[in-house]
């Protein structure tokens, strides 16, 4: 029986989209955590990390409550996109974002903080507004470790199982990601599929981690 590679393609697509969303949300959050003093910073920091330590079922439960068809967010989504979010591949993206974001925020924050402050100070004395200091000085100087963080986040979102199965389900050809497909194949005694998918996922992840390590310099220039 030929192996159905759809779950792998779906997972790559989900992970790519999830990483992009996590970066779009996570980099500003990392900026706030790294640069601003505000009330509730510690709580925000902890909240961002929470999905890393909570059981996947707990995260999945929250998502079902917040995004389910009964919730107001679920209603808004249905009204905008014409269908429910839960048990679609887009729900798998949401699950993956929750997994990718904590890693991305943590590493990005560390990367931003490691940039020599003299450059940022220089930019400020030259009259650059804060957004410009960040976009043209801090972020470019931290680009390699930030890219490494994105690679890690991508690898992490490739592998989600628990949250995905709770909110996106296990619909072959529609929401079945590679992690779920492997579980399915093992349960169904489909050893060939399981073996190949395990190998491919391992290889992709290994490549991503190697890339991330290469990108992380031992020292930020300056």
């Amino acid at each position, binding site marked *: 029986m030929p192996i159905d590679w759809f779950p792998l393609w779906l997972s790559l697509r989900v992970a790519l989209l999830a990483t992009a969303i996590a970066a779009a949300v996570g980099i500003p959050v990392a900026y706030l955590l790294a640069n601003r003093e505000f009330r509730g910073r510690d709580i925000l920091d902890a909240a961002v990390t929470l999905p890393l330590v909570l059981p996947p079922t707990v995260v999945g439960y929250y998502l079902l409550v917040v995004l389910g068809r009964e919730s107001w967010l679920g209603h808004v989504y249905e009204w905008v996109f014409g269908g429910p979010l839960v048990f679609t591949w887009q729900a798998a993206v949401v699950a993956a974002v929750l997994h990718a974001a904590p890693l991305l925020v943590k590493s990005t924050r560390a990367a931003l903080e490691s940039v020599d402050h003299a450059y940022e100070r220089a930019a400020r004395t030259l009259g650059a507004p804060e957004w410009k200091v960040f976009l043209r000085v801090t972020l470019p*100087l931290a680009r390699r470790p930030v890219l490494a963080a994105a690679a890690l986040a991508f690898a992490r979102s490739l592998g989600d199982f628990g949250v995905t199965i709770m909110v996106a389900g296990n619909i072959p050809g529609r929401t079945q990601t590679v992690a779920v497909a492997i579980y399915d194949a093992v349960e169904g005694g489909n050893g060939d599929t399981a073996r190949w998918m395990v190998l491919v996922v391992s290889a992709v992840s290994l490549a991503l981690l190697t890339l991330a390590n290469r990108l992380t310099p031992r020292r930020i220039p300056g």
Partner: protein
Amino acid sequence: MISARLRKAFPAGPDSRAFTLDVQLEAGAGVTVLFGPSGSGKTLTLDCIAGFERPDEGRILLNDAILFDGATRVHLPPQARRCGYVFQNYALFPHMTLRENLEFAAATLKNLERRKRVSEMLERFQLHEVGGRRPHELSGGQKQRGSIARALLASPRVLLLDEPAQGLDAVLRQELYAILREVQHDFPMPALLVTHDLEEALELGDQMHVFRQGRIVQSGTPQGVMDAPGSVEIARQMGIYNLLAAEILALDPGRNTSLLRVGDWEIPGVYYPGHLKGSHVTLCVVPGQVRVRPREGRAPAGTMGLELLHVVAGPDRARLLFAGDFRAEIARGDWEGMARAEEFAVEIPPSALRLIKS
């Protein structure tokens, strides 16, 4: 014209002692040197003026613009202060070319005007040929000029220089001094220069404030401060003096003479108004003003018979180190004439003696 009154307290930390900065200073046209050892608060003062640090209280004025006022809680961001800051390691953005670095500073100008001003500045600092290079492809001198050009492009009202000569070799150092003098001439504005190098202060400074443990302990021209250090600590900080504990044995205002005891020796001085017979003082003596001659047997009256420990004969000066950490510097020719002697008499001309109350 910049005038600042600042107070900022840091409580003791796990690996730092409590520290309080409490200074008041004014700086007009020319270079004002903030002189002091590391940790004395001079860079912190600069950072408060630039807006990187927020003082607890005080007031900072730049040409009548209020940069900071503790009472009314005014604290302008660095962007609005128009302070040109030259950083210790230049802080040229490593991911931009030199030209892009300069354009960054002129961002408020229209495209055409910006290109023109940047080109002029590159030309002015002999950098037009390397405008396309990244900072790591530039020589030390080019980076230095580039960072000054970049600071000037933002049309600052005051220049803040944080140990710009730190870690430079002698040639680059002289180059920097020449550039800074030109900048002072072509872009007249107050400049505050942080340094712990007395040579640099003398070379560039019009005024000087001596920092010690978060306070300004003496102000004046660099030459004036050097000639009359206000305390033993300041004299020690200058690093150029022999400091000798002495007792005043006699004072004669009529003949303008005095007699001082230094260790086992009695040496003549001039009359020192405001000092009393029997009081203990510290003598400051510049090594270059000491006279040395060979002796046989006892040292003649008025001189000291010190034991010579070490000699460094330079190209034109010989540096002699005597017991008791007493240093003398004499012409090389003079040294060669007496190099074979075994014992020496050290004479300090009364005019070379500076007295500090202990």
